[in-house]
């Protein structure tokens, strides 16, 4: 079991579905209690500013919007060797984005193991703090995916008792 696991939500909260990783992070925080060694971090669009968080983690579960030519709301999971090929083929608008930062960690010889979980966004250019319907309906499956991922690492977060 990795000693230090970070669940990292990234994206821009102001740009509709781009912020879905942060929305998911808040849902996780509300609904579950996590054991020591699991940290939930709101990474926003900090890029290089996340190096500290990344280099100090052993395993990172990233939550983000992932465009993959699918239909809005579709779930995606990108794992390590694929992340690497993605970094090689990268042609993003942002020179210093998340993948770039991961690559900078590699340069320091401190890249954590990593999996990216996400949802195909519908709208990411519109200034709006609410998620689209399609993405909203995939939030629950995404949360379950995170829990499965943690279970596979031997971690079972406890569901908080809800007061109805």
């Amino acid at each position, binding site marked *: 079991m990795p000693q230090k696991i970070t669940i990292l939500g990234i994206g821009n909260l102001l740009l509709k579905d781009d912020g879905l990783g942060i929305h998911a992070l808040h849902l996780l925080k509300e609904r579950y209690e996590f054991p020591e060694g699991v940290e939930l971090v709101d990474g926003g669009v900090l890029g290089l500013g996340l*190096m500290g968080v990344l280099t100090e983690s052993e395993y990172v579960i990233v939550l983000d919007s992932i465009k993959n030519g699918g239909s809005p709301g579709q779930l995606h999971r*990108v794992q390590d060797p694929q992340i690497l090929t993605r970094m090689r*083929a990268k042609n993003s608008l942002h020179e*210093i984005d998340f993948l770039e930062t991961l690559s900078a960690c590699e340069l320091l010889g401190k890249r954590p193991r990593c999996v990216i979980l996400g949802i195909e966004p519908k709208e990411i250019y519109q200034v709006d703090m609410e998620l689209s319907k399609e993405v909203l309906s995939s939030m629950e499956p995404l949360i379950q995916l995170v829990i499965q991922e943690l279970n596979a690492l031997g971690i079972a977060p406890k569901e908080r008792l809800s007061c109805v």
Partner: protein
Amino acid sequence: MSEKITIDPITRIEGHLRIEVEVANGKVVNAWSSGQMFRGLEIILRGRDPRDAPLITQRSCGVCTLVHYLSSVRAVEDAVKVKIPPNARIIRNLLHGAQFQHDHIVHFYHLHALDWVDIVSALKADPQKTAALADNVSNAPWGGTVYFKQVQQRLKTFVESGQLGPFNNGYWGHPAYLLPPEANLMAAAHYIEALRLQAKAAKMHAIFGAKNPHLQSLVVGGVTCVQDLNPDRIAEFLYLWKETQDFIKNVYIPDVLAVASFYKDWGKIGGTSNFLAWGDFPESDKEPDSLFMPRGVIMKRDLSKVKMAEQDKVVESVAHSWYKGSEALHPFKGVTDPELGEYDTKKKYSWFKAPRYEGEPCEVGPLARVLVAYAYGKKEIKETVDSVLKQLGLGADALFSTLGRTAARAIETLVIGQQMEKWIMELVENLKKGDKKIYQSWSMPDKGQGIGLNDVPRGSLGHWIEIEGGKIKNYQYVVPSTWNLGPRCAQNKPGPVEEALIGTPVADPKRPVEILRTVHSFDPCIACGVHVIDPESNQVYKIKVL
């Protein structure tokens, strides 16, 4: 014969910027800067509680989270007429000072250095000679033949893995790269060390910022981090501050001098005419008098006529921007009404508005701040500037250039960093005296107008808020990159970057590294945000789809 070059997008910046230049006889004769992203945050803020504005504007950019937060809080404070206690002012200065330390180091090493340093050439360097060179120019704590051999090996592995990563899109081998392989290797090693250091510098924010990485400790009326005002936390801050300050003194400044000594021609390229600084770091509640980095404006490079800058002399023109209307308006009257249009440099060609001060475009940022402070004769700045110029054998006119801009950034990093120690001590003294006050209560007026002016790492930032019925009626902000990268105005005066690019030599139009040098020297940051892992551009690689 002239030729047009378009660079779209400019890489190693935040956001999407397009630069178009016209080159004749190997030099730029005309330039257009176009912001390719619409920032409509003003629209989202209307009708909300004024206290929401700081937390929402904080999210408008990944790099500038603190600074929008700060200016927005200050705008609301101005509108509700509350004065914050001295401790709150000091803590804000410390957080903001830490932002300068972090951002400027990242800018020089990770966003700008590769315009001057050829990574591929570093692979050919002799590690022993590199060690000798490094000993000679810097006081870095790491070095020696073995160290540089290891760095070189690491770079080699990295480059050979096909995973250029941060070194992608470089114009390696371009004749405009003038450093010998050994200087390239030294700089590459420091690039890696700076990656490590910046992660530490970022932690200064976590101490008084309540939450890393997004700060939460600023509120209208002061700060909230009372639990962190204890000797342990302050010592922790001091420790991180010192390590960062050592790096700036022993590595950053010497590296800038070493690189600059090979590129002295760039002391004549890339300059602009007018400079504006709102100033920052209030050392009492008297603003602007007590600002450590002073407020002022300089027109036509005339340092003998520095004047106080007044926010009511600012307007934004939309004549060449994709917005409705044609009148240049003060931010309090500002309207954000987008109008989609074609890219046409004769008509409209940018999402940026064009801010003007008394009708003139002004450069903002490190060079503007340093020039204003220099012109006022501010001791700390003047001494450091004169010493840098002397070491490079250049006159003060060389400041008006790409080289001057990059040197000014390093100079203010050092000077502001040094001043931070005084602020820490002042805080300690206050606490010793039993003054722990960090918040002043206030009440929301029905109506009010407020202005939050700051000078943040990238330049002059202003937030303007109008409150009515206890809600936001209008909100406008004019950010550094709008000043620097904005388009022409109604009078067809080019924006600062457009002006700065004129005269830039371009050896090879297909690989215009010289243009990147000047554009990057402004540290563009385009109220950014779109951040999606986007495999559309690399369809050859299949992604597992659930």
